[in-house]
């Protein structure tokens, strides 16, 4: 188990190797990238097996590194190696292995492997094929480090590394101005949150004297850290999480991030990087739930607002990838909602189920994009006839995420609804159900419009995904169907996901019947409704559209977030910047720097005329200097 650090190291090694030697390797180095992440996936299974066989008592290599965490009440193993000392600060390389880390490792290695194999087909013939895989490897390495880190400093380093990889991959087709703009937007918006995260980490460091997570949790739970500081730290960490996980009001970057290649959207902007924020809140849960768990109220509200807002936008968007992006934001909001309602297990379970389903949906959308080069669903239709496999897997992803019973999305969403029902008041459960309803509606809408009905003109020559792209989609589809079964109490030792990933008291699978049936009815109803509206045309929405036109306009314009931000940047930020720039030019540069510099230069011009180049004038100056010093010394000594 102590070899878990190998998982990210494989990928870290692959990235520079691809850049340097890629041109001479088969597939321009893509093979290295896939081998590295495949190796990571294998090591993940080894580590998982070792972890399941380990217990707090069992000693590994003579040292007992494993213990039962007092917070999660599950087995936790920590391996640390000193990095360097500076005064009384010690920095360590450290990894933590507990159920939360393990499920994240599984998700990241598996989805990254699938997406990289898929990319072999998708990115074929791209001039920067090797660079694409190098950045992919670097991203995987950083993401794996992020989930393995046992101290905030290492986590922050990995956090920024995934940010820069996201930037590089969104702007992968940097010849397109829109891709450049989107990359910059993503980087800057997430940076705003990251500043909060950094301040939060430094605040914890000031209070605790170490970057270690377990010491920070200890201080928060024993009362060594005051309530005010704990709450402030939690809110600051949440700020970082909101930036990365695209929560309102930082969500604006994620839809634009769809400018990147579609497999990138699948891996980074659906399944892994964007859930880093959810992971962070889950990881720092002892800080959030210390004292009266006030920060969780903020988390639950942020999650709810995000989920509602994003799902309404997804209902009216027409760009296939943007529908999926808003759906991702909405589901990230659901995860936050769940965490805020003490649904730790439910949030992580939904994170996994959503990760598989959404990666599948993006890969399906990528397959459409690959062969039709069309992103607008209104210009698609009937694609089922020309690309049956893609239509099948996309439909599986859609109904899984939409929450049709027995597919994994249904179980995970139900766990979230149950958690909200148990711990938060009735308003939250109503809005959560509304989100679930809209989630089913927009998935059904995208699926029916794009893939069913009459085939559009000019789409007859469209081909289905080549096998390199089809196999990863099929594997992900299997998980999108069956992953939810992990939540049950199977006969034998396995008592559902709640007995593995949990915070505090373990709980097996439980099913709140009225909620489950209600959400199932809503999901099936939504799909039937969408079928009638978009396929059969029996129900027309034109009257409703006319009635709610003003609201529709607001939603279609994404609640004017981009416009407001643009206004703030133009009228406030840029004006302020101009004042600063003027101050810099006029005061700092002209008065502060150029004036002394010019006077020195003028003095130099004058003085140099006294430099004749004649040796004896120099000698005379030297002699006079000596005489002067002699006289000075004479008078001083008497």
């Amino acid at each position: 188990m102590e070899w878990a650090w190998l998982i990210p190291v494989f990928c870290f090694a692959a990235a520079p190797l691809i850049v340097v030697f890629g041109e001479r390797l088969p597939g321009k180095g893509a093979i290295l990238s896939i081998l590295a992440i495949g190796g990571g996936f294998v090591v993940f299974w080894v580590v998982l097996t070792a972890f399941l066989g380990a217990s707090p008592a069992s000693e590994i290599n003579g040292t007992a590194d494993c213990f039962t965490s007092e917070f999660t009440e599950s087995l936790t193993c920590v391996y640390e190696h000193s990095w360097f000392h500076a005064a009384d600060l010690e920095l360590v390389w450290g990894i933590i292995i507990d159920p939360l880390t393990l499920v994240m490792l599984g998700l990241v290695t598996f989805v990254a492997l699938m997406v990289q194999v898929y990319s072999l087909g998708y990115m074929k013939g791209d001039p920067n094929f090797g660079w694409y895989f190098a950045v992919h490897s670097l991203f995987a390495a950083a993401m794996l480090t992020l989930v393995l880190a046992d101290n905030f400093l290492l986590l922050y380093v990995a956090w920024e590394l995934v940010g820069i990889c996201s930037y590089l991959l969104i702007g992968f087709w940097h010849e397109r101005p829109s891709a450049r703009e989107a990359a910059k937007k993503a980087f800057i918006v997430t940076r705003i949150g990251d500043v909060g995260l950094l301040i939060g980490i430094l605040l914890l460091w000031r209070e605790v004297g170490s970057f270690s997570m377990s010491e920070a949790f200890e201080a928060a739970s024993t009362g060594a850290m005051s309530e005010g500081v704990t709450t402030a730290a939690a809110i600051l960490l949440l700020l970082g999480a909101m930036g990365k996980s695209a929560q309102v009001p930082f969500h604006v970057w994620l839809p634009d991030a769809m400018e990147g290649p579609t497999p990138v959207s699948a891996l980074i902007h659906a399944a892994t990087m964007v859930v880093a924020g959810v992971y962070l809140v889950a990881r720092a849960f002892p800080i959030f739930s210390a004292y009266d768990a006030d920060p969780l109220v903020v988390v639950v509200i942020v999650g709810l607002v995000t989920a509602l807002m994003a799902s309404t936008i997804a209902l009216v968007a027409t760009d296939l990838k943007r529908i999926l992006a808003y759906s991702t934001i909405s589901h990230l909001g659901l995860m936050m909602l769940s965490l805020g309602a003490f649904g730790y297990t439910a949030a992580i379970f939904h994170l996994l189920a959503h990760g598989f389903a959404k990666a599948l949906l993006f890969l399906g959308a990528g397959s459409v994009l690959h062969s039709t080069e069309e992103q607008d669903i209104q210009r698609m239709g009937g694609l089922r006839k020309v690309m049956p496999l893609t239509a099948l897997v996309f439909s599986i992803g859609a109904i899984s995420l939409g929450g049709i019973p027995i597919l994994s999305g249904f179980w995970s969403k139900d766990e979230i609804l149950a958690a909200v029902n148990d711990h938060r008041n009735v308003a939250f459960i109503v809005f959560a159900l509304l989100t679930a309803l809209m989630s089913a509606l927009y998935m059904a809408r995208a699926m029916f419009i794009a893939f069913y009905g009459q085939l559009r003109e000019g789409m007859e020559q469209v081909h289905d995904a080549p096998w390199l792209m089809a196999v990863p989609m099929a594997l992900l589809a299997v998980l999108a169907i069956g992953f939810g079964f992990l939540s049950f109490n199977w006969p034998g030792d396995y008592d559902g996901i709640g007995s593995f990933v949990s915070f505090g008291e373990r709980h097996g699978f439980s099913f709140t019947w009225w909620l489950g049936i209600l959400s199932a009815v809503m999901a099936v109803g939504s799909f039937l409704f969408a079928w009638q509206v978009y396929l059969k045309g029996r129900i027309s929405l034109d009257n409703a559209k006319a009635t709610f036109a003003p609201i529709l306009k607001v939603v279609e314009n994404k609640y004017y977030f981009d416009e407001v931000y643009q206004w703030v940047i133009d009228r406030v930020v840029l004006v302020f910047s101009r004042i600063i720039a003027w101050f810099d030019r006029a005061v700092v540069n002209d008065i502060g720097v150029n004036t002394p510099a010019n006077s020195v230069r003028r003095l130099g011009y004058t003085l140099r005329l006294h430099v004749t180049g004649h040796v004896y004038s120099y000698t005379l100056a030297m002699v006079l200097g000596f005489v002067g010093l002699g006289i000075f010394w004479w008078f001083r000594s008497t």
Partner: protein
Amino acid sequence: MVSLFYFQLLSAGLFAIGLYGVLARRSAVLIVMSIELMLNAVNINLIAAASHLEGRGSFVRFDGQIIAIFIITIAAAEVGLALAIILRMYRNRSTVNVDEIDIMKW
């Protein structure tokens, strides 16, 4: 025994003559000679002082003489170097007049 004062007077006189030569002469050769004069003035001063101070405190006669011998050695090397430079100077610029050699400036 001659008083130390006269040796110092001689030394100061020689040094002043040498200094005047360095400052006032135009010919590089004469400047080198003047430098030699100054060095030897120092030598006289050192040896006289050493002889005068012998037996007081921890001074011995050789202290001054050793430094004087060092100076003589270094002066010999310096003359060799200086004459070589002057020779090159003459080859390049056909003059040893330091007034005309004024490129050591901005």
